[in-house]
């Protein structure tokens, strides 16, 4: 039963009705404008599947995106969605989470959005560790603006803004997340939505910040890193014998692999670390959006005024 402020969710009062929850529960009437074959379709499918797996209803999650092809995802599903600004969804999501931690907060954005213009929020959110799941549709290109090189474009990648090939060392998002102290670092592939769904579900389940970098083919502007290109190279770390995602040093080495062999799966996970919300005193009594104004009453006010006499 929703509270007086209308913000509550079924999960708030403990009762949880998941009967009838299917991927169709997340469907709306909007037809995606993505190019046929775009990897973003795989991400959309995987996200819906993960939510169904975790029995999270549309009103219990908030999906915050940025600006870019992939960020349009919130327009194509029935969910509390917020398409914000280019590069800013993590900051907006942090505000949502800290105001109402009862929502499952998920960020979806592109590589330009997440690692380029949004790099500072990425770095600081990773070390801050709020309970936010961060899915980056990494197509190694600025797609919506029609094909400029991105921070993850490989060296030598030619675009309208890198006619002689990208000269900068690409961002390695996994390594960066590890260096920032992220407690969950994974990589998925849009061409394998089922596996991706399992990673997203693990990320949502994980308490704290979870990065899921998704290899997402852009069939229109990235003619190098195609489905085939990725498919030929990826392998699953959970199928490697002896790989332990709790081993930081192993993760560090694994995260550096790129090129002929590209690992996908949970690269690193450290459990039992408190998420940022647990340090916030005002959240001790539950989400602040559920706190009545009456908390600050006349007696409190008079006490505050007394400080100035």
């Amino acid at each position, binding site marked *: 039963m929703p509270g007086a402020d209308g913000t509550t969710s079924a999960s708030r009062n403990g009762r949880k009705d998941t009967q009838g929850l299917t991927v169709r529960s997340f469907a709306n009437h909007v037809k995606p404008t993505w190019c046929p074959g775009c990897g973003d379709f795989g991400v959309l499918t995987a996200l819906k599947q993960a939510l169904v797996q975790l029995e999270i209803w549309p009103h219990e999650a908030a999906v915050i995106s940025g600006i870019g092809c992939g960020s349009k995802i919130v327009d194509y599903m029935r969910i509390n969605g917020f398409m914000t*600004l280019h590069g800013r969804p993590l900051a907006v999501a942090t505000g949502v989470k*800290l105001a109402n931690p009862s929502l499952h907060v998920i960020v979806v954005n592109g590589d330009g959005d997440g690692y380029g213009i949004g790099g500072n929020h990425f770095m600081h959110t990773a070390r801050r560790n709020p309970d936010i799941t961060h899915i980056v549709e990494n197509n190694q290109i600025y797609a919506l603006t029609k094909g400029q090189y991105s921070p993850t474009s490989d060296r030598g990648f030619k675009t309208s803004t890198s006619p002689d090939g990208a000269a900068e060392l690409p961002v390695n998002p996994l390594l960066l997340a590890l260096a920032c102290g992220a407690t969950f670092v994974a990589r998925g592939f849009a061409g394998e939505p089922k596996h991706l769904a399992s990673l997203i579900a693990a990320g949502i389940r994980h308490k704290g910040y979870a990065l899921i970098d998704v290899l997402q083919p852009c069939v229109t502007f990235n003619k190098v890193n195609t489905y085939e290109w990725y498919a030929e190279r990826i392998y699953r770390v959970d199928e490697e014998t002896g790989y332990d995602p709790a081993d930081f040093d192993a993760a560090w080495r694994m995260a550096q692999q790129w090129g002929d062999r590209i690992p996908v799966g949970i690269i690193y996970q450290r459990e039992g670390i408190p998420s940022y919300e647990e340090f916030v005193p005002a959240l001790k009594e539950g989400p602040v959006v559920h706190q009545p104004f009456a908390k600050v009453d006349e007696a409190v006010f008079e006490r505050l005024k007394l400080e100035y006499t």
Partner: protein
Amino acid sequence: MTDLSITIGGDAGQGVESSGSTFSLASLRSGWNVFSIQDYRSRIRGGHNFYQIRVASREIRSHSDPVHLLLALTKESIDIHLANLAPGAGILHDDSLRPDEEAARAHGAHFFPMPFTEIATRHGNRVMTNTAAVGAGAGLLGLSLDALKSVIAERFSAKGDKVVESNLAVAEEAYNLALKRYQGTFQHSLNGRVPPRSERRSRTPGPMLISGNEAFALGAALGGCRFVSAYPMTPATTIFEWLVKREKQLGIVTKHAEDEIAAICMAIGAGYAGARALVPTSGGGFSLMVEALGMAGMVEVPVVIAEVQRGGPSTGLPTRTEQGDLLFALHASQGEFPRIVLAPGTHEEYFEAGWRAFNLAEKYQCPVIVLADQFLAASLSTIAWEALSFQSVRRDRGQLLTGQELDAFDNGEYRRFKLTPTGISPRALPGHPKAVYTVVTDEHDEEGHITEAIDNRVAQMDKRMRKLEEARKEMRGPKRYGPKDAELTLICWGSLAGPAVESLPLLEAQGVRANVLHFSDIWPFPVQEAEKALQAVKRAVAVEQNYTGQFARLLRMCTGFSVSRIIRKFDGRPFSPQQIATACLEEVAQHARS
């Protein structure tokens, strides 16, 4: 009528600030009305700082020139403040300083040397020199020793009993010595002039002495602030620090963010989720928030920004005052969307803006900017206990749908951006099964989905902008201070209310009948009320703490009304009533000549 000004001057790091606030509060507790300002540089140590405290028997609204008593912690302070001393002013200083007696005599000032350092080191250590100065000043002026001691005891309590006792001893000895040595010779002493209004010295409700930022933060807390995110920036930092300090008591989520972009984005996220969210900053930080301001406007999320102006442009004069960001705040961000801008004129109005901004933000579902400045933010003003009243505070969330109301909706019926006659679409917070919707910063339809259709675009733009017309209805016109039939009208906005109003008696004394029209509700501009008020104006000057007369230009843009002259100040130091009066008299004289 008693009305005296005291300056405490010294180097940064010498405790000028704490001395000033101690002296101010001791004056209040001695029964006087007090108004204090602080002048300091953007550095941690070194360089001249001062505190200027005005003590009067009547209600006062600003600092005032000239100064009657100078507590000089350095020789430099004497050199700097000499020119601003009143005839018969006293200069209290350590006897080790060797001031230029000649120059002082020319100003009719008297030196009162005192063994500050000696007293301080005897009871404690050198650091307490400033306590000695404060004690002596209080004695010479005739403040209540008990009042002073109560303030000192409280201020030093965190440092332990020993420190408290030493300081009390230093203050008391200096107080008594100053009285003994110089009683009678200092002509501006308060002793026996007006009996202290009350003998309140303990912490029972009495008049308050509060800074603007404290009053605002208090107002915000009362207004139901639930979230504040910020990046430190003078002179707004103290709002944030005030709320952080009381986060547990008030139940406010506070977040020191990685930068200002994150700060406002977090607040917008919190506002979207349903928390009353605040971002305090100054012009430089606001510059970084511009893009997100437009986002809040477009997705119709309430958020309050306290933009505490300082001297610009760019890093400028970081610890000083200016009203240089008015037209910037009004037009910041690409494209057009509703925003509300308030520029409180007094500490009471700044307090009120603290809660009123949230009501406006939620009623009109748009960003609200409270434009203050360093002068308003950091000055201490005396406010009657009753003037900040709990009953006055209203918390109006506008058309926020309750859970019960939403329960009654059919599935898929709720439309976040519904077209309505007022432009206000009933708002549902995320978390309710009947109100699952997406908001996007692209143009969108009533449900929130992206569309570029022409009709929808026009309808949604009209809808959003209608909210501005709706809000305009409750924007307050200018407040008139002084006689209706004045020959000269001083038009001002924001923090200048106090100095402008206090210049009226000075003008009156020079035979000029003037009044003040003060604007505090800036946007949407209260055009009709302004035009009505302007009809009665015979001749107008604008008084502004900036270079180009931004408000005068805004007024012309909105009403066509032109002022005869813009009285400007842009050196980072606040206008005093005397400076305003002098400039007005010039204008009157010039007008008479022409």
